C-alpha cells in the first residue's frame, strides 16, 4: 500500500524539537520508512526545522545512505575498484546495464532492480565482483550476468 508522504512525515517530526541538529535523525527515519527521501518529505522537514529547503537537499545528497528516488526490490552492485577494474569489472557493469536497460543510480520501470556501483567491496581476491542484495558473486563473467539476473526476476 502507498504511504501518505505528508502524513507520515508529520508523524516523523511529531516527537522532535524544532532544532536543526535533528535533521539527520529525521532523514534517517524517513529513509527507513519510505526507502528513499521524497521531495515532499524533505520540504516538510525543512519547514519544520526552519531550514532552507536547499540545505536539507544538500545534506540528503551528501550522505550515501540517503536515496532521492525509490529503489527497486533488488539492489545490484557492481564493483569498480582497482582490482575489479583490471579484471574487467567495467565489462560486467556494461553487461548489467545492457541487460537491465538502466545506468548506475537508476531503477528499472517495474521497480524490480536498482543498479549501483561501489569503490571496492573488500573481496578483491574474488574480483571482478558483483553483489545482488546480500549474495556476493565472485569471478564474474559476462555470461553469468544473464543467469544471475534471470534468477532475480
Amino acid at each position, binding site marked *: 500500500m502507498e504511504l501518505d508522504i505528508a502524513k507520515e512525515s508529520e508523524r516523523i517530526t511529531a516527537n522532535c524539537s524544532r532544532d536543526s541538529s535533528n535533521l539527520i535523525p529525521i532523514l534517517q527515519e524517513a529513509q527507513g520508512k519510505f526507502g528513499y527521501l521524497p*521531495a515532499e518529505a524533505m*520540504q516538510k522537514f525543512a519547514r519544520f526545522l526552519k531550514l*532552507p*529547503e*536547499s*540545505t536539507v*537537499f*544538500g545534506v540528503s*545528497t*551528501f550522505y550515501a545512505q540517503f536515496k532521492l528516488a525509490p529503489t527497486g526490490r533488488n539492489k545490484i552492485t557492481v564493483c569498480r575498484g582497482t582490482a575489479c577494474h583490471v579484471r574487467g569489472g567495467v565489462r560486467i557493469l556494461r553487461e548489467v546495464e545492457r541487460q537491465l536497460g538502466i545506468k548506475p543510480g537508476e531503477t528499472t520501470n517495474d521497480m524490480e532492480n536498482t543498479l549501483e556501483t561501489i569503490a571496492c567491496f573488500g573481496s578483491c581476491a574474488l574480483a571482478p565482483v558483483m553483489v545482488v542484495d546480500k549474495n556476493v558473486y565472485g569471478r564474474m563473467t559476462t555470461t553469468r550476468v544473464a543467469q544471475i539476473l534471470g534468477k532475480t526476476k
Partner: protein
Amino acid sequence: MEEIRLTIDGQEVKAKPGMTVLEAARSAGIYIPTLCADPDLKPYGGCRLCIVEIEKLRGFPTSCTTPVTEGMVVKTNTDAVNEVRRTVVELLLSDHPSECLICHRRKRCGPFDICLRNVAVTERCVTCAKNEHCELQDIVDYLGITELPFKHTERSYPVDTSNPFFYRDLDKCVLCGKCVRVCDEVLGVGAVAIINRGFGSKVATFGDKPIIDSNCVSCGECVVHCPVGALMPKVTERPTEEVATTCTYCGVGCGMYLGVRDGKVMSVRGKREGTVNNGFLCVKGRFGFDFIHHEDRLKYPLIKKNGKFAEASWDEALELVATKLGGYKPDELAVVSSAKCTNEDNYVAQKFARVVLKTNNVDHCARLCHAPTVAGLVQSFGSGAMTNSISEFRDAGCIFAIGTNTTEAHPIIALELKRAVDNGARLIVANPREIDLVRWSYLWLQHNPGSDVALLMGMMRIIVEEGLLDQAFIDKRCENFDAFKVALKGFDLDSVARITGVPKEKIAEAARIYATKKPSAILYAMGITQHSHGTDNVIATANLAMLTGNIGKPASGVNPLRGQNNVQGACDMGALPNVYPGYQAVTDAKVKSKFEAAWGGSLSPSVGLPVTEIVEAAYKGKIKAMYLIGENPLLSEPDITHAEEALDKLEFLVVQDIFLSETAKLADVILPGVSFAEKNGTFTNTERRVQRVRKAVEPIGESRADWEISCQVGKKMGGKGFYFKNASQIMEEIASLTPSYGGISYKRLEKGGLQWPCPTPEHPGTPILHTQQFTRGKGQFIPLEYKPPMELPDKQYPLVLTTGRSLYHFHTGTMTRKVAGLNVLKKEGEVEINPADAAKLGIADGDRVKVVSRRGEVVTKANVTEVSPAGVVFMTFHFAESPANRLTNPALDPVAKIPEYKVCAVRVEKA
C-alpha cells in the same frame, strides 16, 4: 578604542581589536589571495588560499579566521605559503576552464585569436564575461602559475539561464560557497546549497532545479559576491561612468550607482558608504531600471483632440493648461502630487497650488498609506515619522513587527531584521498571513484582520496587570495615563482572544517579551494604517511604546515603514491639504503670514480636501479641474469603478507622468515628466534621511523635470516665485521656510544623507526622535476602544479580502510592469486562498476565479496556499488586468481619511 599593533611583511600595521589578520592586511593595502573571505560574510576558512605564516604559531593559519593580537608578526608571501597555495589552486583548476588562465598571452588575447593551445572558444577566459575582473585570475597571476600537473576533467553542467537577470555557469564555479552563504546568512533565503560530495559537489537549488523554480528572490547578491564568472548578470557590458543616487522603488532609500554607457542606464551597483543598505539591493533596485529607456515613455506633450491624443509643443500645452486652470475658482481646483517625485518637485507643486491656484486642495498618495501615521503619532508624540533608524534594529532585544510584510515591501529592512534575530533579538510577528518573516520569528500572532487595537490593548493590559510597565518613564515623560488605564478595563484576555482569534497564552507571552526584552522596537506598515480605524491602530502602538518606556532610546521606538520612495518627503514638503512644508498648519495665522511674505501672495486660510475627498468632490461636480502629478488613482484608489466615474466628470484633467498610465488615458493634456535617473533632487526615506538623487542621463525625448514643468505653468499663470535655475536653489528655499530642513543643503548632502530634524547648518541630524522630550512636550496616552472593520463577511460575501504588495512590483506597476524581467518573475495577479476554502469551492491551484465584492468583480488566478488563513483571501494591487481595488471598500478613517484597503468582504467563485 584601543589599537592593536602588528607587523605584516615588515610593515607596521595598526588594527582594531576583533579584526582578522586578513582585514588588517587589506586595510594596509597588502594583498593576500582569497576566494572565500568576504567583508559581508562571516569568516569561513574554506579555500585555504589566505594562509600566512605567523611567528610563534605553528603551521599556516588562515588569515581570514585568525584575529589580530598585539605584537603579532605576519608574513604573507613566503615560498612555503605560496607552495601550499599553488597546490590548492592547481587542484581547483583541474576542473576549471584553465587554458587561457595559465597562458602568458591572456592579457593580449582576443576572443577569436588563433590559439596554439587549441582552446575551445567556450572555454576561454577571453570569452568569459568576468575576464580581467576575475579573482581567480588575480590569484593565478599572483602565484605565477603557468602549467598544471593534473589532468583536466570537464564538468559540463548545462548553463542555467532561467532567471531573467543572471545566469549560472557552474563549470566556472570554484565552490567558494559565497553565493550559498550570502543567500543564507544575509538574505535568509537559502535558495542554494552545496550538494553531493567530492568531484560531484556543486551549488544547487532544492532538487537541483533551475534557479527560477526555487525560492530565489532574484536579488542578485550571489552574483555580486561570486569571485569568478560562474554567476553573471545577463547584461555584461560595463558602464563608462557611474552616478551615485538613491533608489526610486521604496521608502528604504537604498544608495546606488547608476552605470551609464552611451547615454543609457545599463547597470546598477549598490553603494556601501554612508547608506542604509550597506551595498545590498533588492531585485527592483538592482535590476528594475529598464523602464527608464522603455519605448513607451512619454516623449512629447500630448493634447486630447476629439478623443484622441495628438503631439503638441511645450508652448502650446503649457499655454492651454495655464488658460484652462486660470478659468476656475480656487475651490474648483485640486493638485494631486506624488510620493514618487522628489522633495523639490513636491515643494514646487504645493507652492503652485497654494500661491497660484490659491487653494489648499493639494494632497498625494500618502493619504492612501500613512495618513493615520501622521494623524496618530502627531497626537501621541507630536511628530508623525519613524522615531528611530534602520541601522539600530540589529541591536534590539525584541522586534515587534505588526502589519508589515517586510521581506516583500521593504526587503533591505528585512535584512536588518534577520540580522537582529541572528544577534539574539526576539522577533514577534503579528500578521493574519503566514508571511516570510514568520520563519525567523520567535512568536507569531495570527490575529484576525482588523483586530489590531484589541490585540495591542490586550497586551497592554497584561503589561499593566503584571507590573511590567515603566512607571518612572510614564510619570516623567507622559500624560493622561490614568484615563488610558480605565480604557484597558474592556480588554480582558478572554474577550481579546475571542476578537483576535489568538490564543491567550500567546498574547500574554508577546506582552511579556515586548515589555522585558528591552530595547524593543515596534515596526509597522500598511497592515496597521489601511483601516477605517487606522489612526486608532497607530495610537495603540504609540501607547504600547510609552507604557514600557521603549521610546526615545536607541533600537526602540515606533517605526512606521513608509512605502513609496519619497512619501516621507512629500509629506514633509507640505503636499498635504492642512499643512505647509514642515507640518506648519495652514490655519495658523502667524505661519500663513510667514509663507505669504516669503511666497509673495495671499494664501487660503482654510484646510483643503484630502485626495479621497477630492475624488468624491469631483464625482459631485464640485472639483472641476485637476492637476495630477505622477499618480495613478485608477489603480490605487479604493473602489476604482467609482473613481473612474469621478475623474470622467472633470472638465479638465492635466496628468504629468512618464508613462501613459490608466489615469493618464483620461487626461485632456499630458505633460511628460522624467524618471529619477534624469533629474537632480532629493528623496527623504522612511527614517527621515534626506538623500540626493542625481541626474545620470539626459531627459528622454522632450520630457522635462517635474518641478520645471510646474514652475513653467506657474510662471505662465503669473506666479512670481517660480524662477528656480536648478533643484539646489529649491532646496535653499525649502531650508529657509522649513525648520526641520533648515540645515540641509546640497553641499552638505554630498557627504551623505541627513536625518531631519536638522535645523542649522552645523546640526548633525537626528537619528532618534523624542530622546529628551516629545515633540509635543509630553507623550500623550490616548484611551481607545475596539471597532470592527466596516464590512464584515456575511452569507453573500463570506470571505475577508486583504490586499498588499509583491516584492517584484512597485505600486500600480507603471514602472515595474515595463521591466521585462520583473514580469517574468511575477507576471500576473493572483488571489491567495487557503486550501480549506478552495476545497469547499471546488477551486484548484491555478484555476481562473472570479472575486466579487459589493463594488465590483475581478477575474484572476487562484493560488491555493496555506499562507492565507481559512476565511481570508489576499491580492496585490499592482495589476491593471486584475485590479484588487475594484473590490476594496472606500470606507474612510474619520480622522486620517484613509480607505479600508485591508479588509472587505468578498466571495470567490470559479470563473
